[in-house]
């Protein structure tokens, strides 16, 4: 399954970037939950700050998928602009990727601010910085795919909204993204390590050393789960983008 992208994909990404940048308020407020949680942690349990900072980065990246979900649904259901792009030389996967890249570029500044905070308050080693880069990339693939797939499943904008809140809570709040996995009873660990968002955070914590104590087997399990889930879902989303470029 060869990806057919090119200049058109980049041009569409820049279009989306431009569209998103007009929503400065949305970009700024995309940080609210993370910042509020960080403030709580600083007040209530300052020792957990390194966990919460890493959690905030992964959470922010996961949220990109929710933006894609809403944007893709909006330009399809409300504007029908997808028809202009699908009936053109821009490939269906180029459309999906362009949208994903545009949203990423627009929402990058908040992530950069969080990374600077990490550098100031709880600096990472070179190895854990590399691990963070890798897991964030995988979470991005996962969340773009999930958001785009869900956006295609409905004919009504309002039917999509509940999913954004459901997914944010399921992937961002419930599993150990903002809090240490050690606070969960042991029998929950296999599940937490199989959920991409919490697996990503825990892998960086393990690389950083001292934040979490995992066996090598658990690390391998988390890394494999995250990689396989992210790549498989992304691959499916590319296929799905092609299939849904034509309605049935």
């Amino acid at each position, binding site marked *: 399954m060869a990806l057919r992208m090119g200049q*058109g994909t980049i041009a569409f990404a*820049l*279009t989306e970037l*431009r569209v998103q940048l007009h929503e400065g308020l949305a970009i700024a407020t995309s940080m609210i939950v993370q910042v509020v949680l960080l403030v709580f942690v600083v007040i209530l349990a300052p020792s957990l700050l390194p966990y919460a900072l890493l959690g905030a980065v992964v959470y922010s990246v996961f949220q990109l998928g929710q933006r894609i979900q809403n944007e893709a649904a909006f330009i399809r259901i409300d*504007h029908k602009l997808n028809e202009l792009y699908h*009936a053109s030389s821009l490939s269906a996967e180029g459309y999906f990727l362009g949208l994903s890249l545009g949203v990423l570029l627009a929402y990058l500044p908040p992530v950069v601010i969080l990374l600077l905070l990490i550098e100031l308050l709880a600096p990472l080693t070179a190895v854990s910085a590399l691990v963070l880069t890798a897991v964030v990339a995988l979470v991005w693939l996962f969340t773009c795919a999930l958001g785009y797939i869900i956006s295609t499943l409905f004919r009504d904008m309002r039917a999509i909204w509940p999913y954004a809140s459901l997914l944010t809570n399921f992937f961002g709040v419930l599993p150990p993204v903002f809090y240490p996995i050690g606070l969960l009873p042991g029998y929950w660990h296999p599940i937490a390590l199989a959920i991409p968002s919490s697996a990503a955070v825990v892998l960086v914590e393990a690389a950083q050393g001292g934040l979490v104590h995992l066996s090598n087997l658990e690390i391998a399990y988390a890394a494999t789960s995250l990689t396989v889930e992210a790549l498989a879902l992304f691959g499916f989303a590319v296929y799905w983008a092609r299939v849904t470029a034509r309605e049935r």
Partner: protein
Amino acid sequence: MAEEALVAEDVRKRYVSRGAPPTDALRGVSLRIDKGERVGLLGRNGAGKTTFLRIVSTLLIPSSGSVRVFGRDAIADPDAVRSMLAVVPQEGKPFFHLTPREQVYSYLRARGFTRETARFRSEEALGQMGLMEIADRLSITLSGGQRQRTMVATVIATEAPLMFLDEPTIGMDPFARREVWASLRRLTAKGCTILLTTHYLDEAENLAQRLSVIERGKVLVEGTGESLKRRAGGTIRVSITGGEKLGPELESFGLLIPDGSALHVVTSPERVQEILGLAVRAGLPASVGPVTLEEAFLRVVGRSIDEEG
């Protein structure tokens, strides 16, 4: 023989969706359009026009039938034809947070045009659609008609070989509509091919060289506006105020259409003199004019509704 741009054969579509019983939106539609033609697709609401346009533009999979675009199978291999297409979807809108200038330019870029070509073509299309004065305002601040002009500008700027426009002039003022007509004429003069739908019959008559009327998913009539009028029973209309009184006497002259206080007689040019004579003798005011396409459409489609019940 002319080069074929679009050949659709026996296209059928049954929608099976939640919230509605299965609907046979198309029941065997065939249409052939040659390169450089402008063809109008007419029909009542729900006749199947949008369904047909979405199928031939690779946006909807038909239940059966075949579609070829410049000789290529658009159903088996949609990617092979997509770069030759451009569509104005029914009730589409430009990006709210782009200006018309950004919208047209960025769409051309996404289609792979170079910066220079995209800039040149977008300025040209904006000018043709009368958008220059508002080209740098966000589309969210534009009126419905201005947004629609932006959509049309976006698509005509591509000069794609085959364009599908679904009610492109909806909500436009008479000046804007004429700008669209002129642009579409220019495009076909350059070799582009156009299929459009419209409910403005004057537009269809002015713009389309050939018409296809569909009704309940089938082609009812195909041909020029003139041939459609002939099928309606004549090309001349004599309107007689208070003509009902003459009713029975007039029946032999052609089709009678009561319309408020007037009675229209659709007839052939040779018989006009006789009818006017009758009206004058009865002391009734009468006027003569061409049958409009709208009258012919009402007549032809109305007859079909009566027959099928």
